[in-house]
């Protein structure tokens, strides 16, 4: 459905952030994109959704294809119309709008009024709490509710592919679980394909069908969640476990040696 082929992204004409990144997302699946801070995960999502342009970023090599069409030169609004919707990192709700107005803003590209009402119903089905918050401004919602609103906004556009950038950021463990369950439901019930960027590797691999691990602007490892969970390096660096299932002591020198091999 979506494929990135050797994508290179440069910010401000000088800063090389993605260095030949390739990945594929299959229709109907949840793909997880994992990696440390600064690996280029968010940049990858923005390269897909067209949000690079206002940040002076540019795809300088390779291409992004969605349903067989090259989309990396298109403006963000055209990409949304084609069915890709990015839920940005840090929720980014419209603080001075009510939850319902936020949702309507999400339906900006949807043309018919009847469809919008139906979409509202559906979002309130997933997130009844948003309906309860009625007329208060979205800026006063709790962090969890704001994340729900951000995902609800995406649902309003009925996208074929949803890009989620760290939906668990800054949320309590119980809420993280709730959000991930809903992501899984959206994937199953709406048939929405999802590309999920996460720091919380354990949780992400639980719901994903396929996973990619990024370091320094390229994919260094990929596989099914089972394969990734079995990989010694992943266990150590992302799941925080050693082979015997205990927490790793970071005094161990070997840790750094192996890490160095990854980064080169």
């Amino acid at each position, binding site marked *: 459905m979506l494929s990135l082929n050797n994508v290179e992204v440069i910010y401000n004409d000088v800063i090389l952030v993605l260095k030949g990144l390739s990945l594929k997302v299959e229709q109907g699946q949840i793909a997880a994109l994992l990696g440390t801070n600064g690996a280029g995960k968010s940049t990858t999502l923005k390269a897909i959704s067209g949000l690079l342009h206002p940040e002076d970023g540019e795809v300088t090599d390779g291409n992004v294809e969605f349903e067989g069409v090259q989309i990396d030169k298109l403006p963000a609004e055209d990409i*949304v119309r084609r069915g890709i919707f990015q839920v*940005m990192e840090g929720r980014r709700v*419209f603080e*001075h709008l009510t939850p319902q107005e936020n949702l309507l803003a999400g339906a900006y590209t949807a043309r018919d009024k009847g469809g919008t009402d139906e979409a509202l119903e559906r979002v309130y089905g997933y997130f009844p709490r948003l309906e309860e918050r009625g007329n208060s401004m979205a*800026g*006063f919602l709790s*962090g969890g509710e704001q994340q729900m609103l951000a995902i609800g906004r995406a649902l309003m*556009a009925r996208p074929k592919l949803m890009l989620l950038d760290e939906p668990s950021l800054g949320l309590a463990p119980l809420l993280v679980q709730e959000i991930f369950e809903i992501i899984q439901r959206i994937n199953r019930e709406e048939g929405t394909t999802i590309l999920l960027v996460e720091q919380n590797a354990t949780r992400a691999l639980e719901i994903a069908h396929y996973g990619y691990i990024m370091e320094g602007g390229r994919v260094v490892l990929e596989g099914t969640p089972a394969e990734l969970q079995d990989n010694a390096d992943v266990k150590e660096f992302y799941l925080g476990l050693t082979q015997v299932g205990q927490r790793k002591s970071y005094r161990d020198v070997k840790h750094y040696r192996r890490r160095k091999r990854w980064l080169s």
Partner: protein
Amino acid sequence: MDSDVFLQLTVSGLSNGMVYALVAVGFVVIFKASDVINFAQGEFLLFGAYLAFAFIAQFGLPWSLGVLATLLTAAMIGLIVERLVLRPLIGEPVISMIMVTIGLSSLLRAVVNGIWGVRPKAFPNFIPSGEVEFLGAIVGFDRLLVIAIAAILLTVLTLFFRYTRDGIAMRAIADDQQAALSMGISIKRVLAVAWAMAAITAAVAGIMLANTVGVSHDIIFIGLRVFPVVILGGLDSVPGAIVGGGVIGLLESYTAGYTTSGLELIVPYIVLILVLMVRPYGLFGKEIIERV
């Protein structure tokens, strides 16, 4: 205190205030859509007045067609300004956009000078000059017309911002431009609509002003008077623009009526300073939301 004088001052203050409100509404629309403070709003007024003068007095169109042509041309100018000046700055810091409107104001003023010269012109008198007596005060038709237009605009704009797709999109853009972009909201389209709306309301106000003060550069100074109005009412509030306009108009009128020293010229700015100290987001402006 003479109650007739008081009533007369109230009515003239209110109707002046509604002209301010009309100017302020255009200002508010742009601020709501983009957080940009448009320093060229006074020049938009000027353009509206001169365009009406040109269409009605110079080309001899009947006033209904002349007003229509003025509003259409004003909308076109708004669109052109957005396309050539503001659009290249989308995504840049808001302060750049604000600075560019200062440049824009000089440019527009120069264009007006270039076309029509700097001498004041007589405005074609098409607004009926009759008057009615209202509770013992005498009110001109033109004043009543201003109040009616302000009321209609307030209603239409309030509904627009609350219920229409573009209205909600405008407020969304003002809150978080990038997030708005991420949901396919066309910032270009919405900004274009905002500037066209601002230019149209300014043209309406320009025509009303030209009718009372004549077609001259003095109109720009009325444009300056909107700053106290919008600061008092709240930069992003349409009802705030109307209330702020009314309050400033009344204050000016009372100080002019009951004091002798030209104090009414500075009263609005004293209000401006006080509001900024006590309630910087104005009476109806949006508060900055901080979650702790």
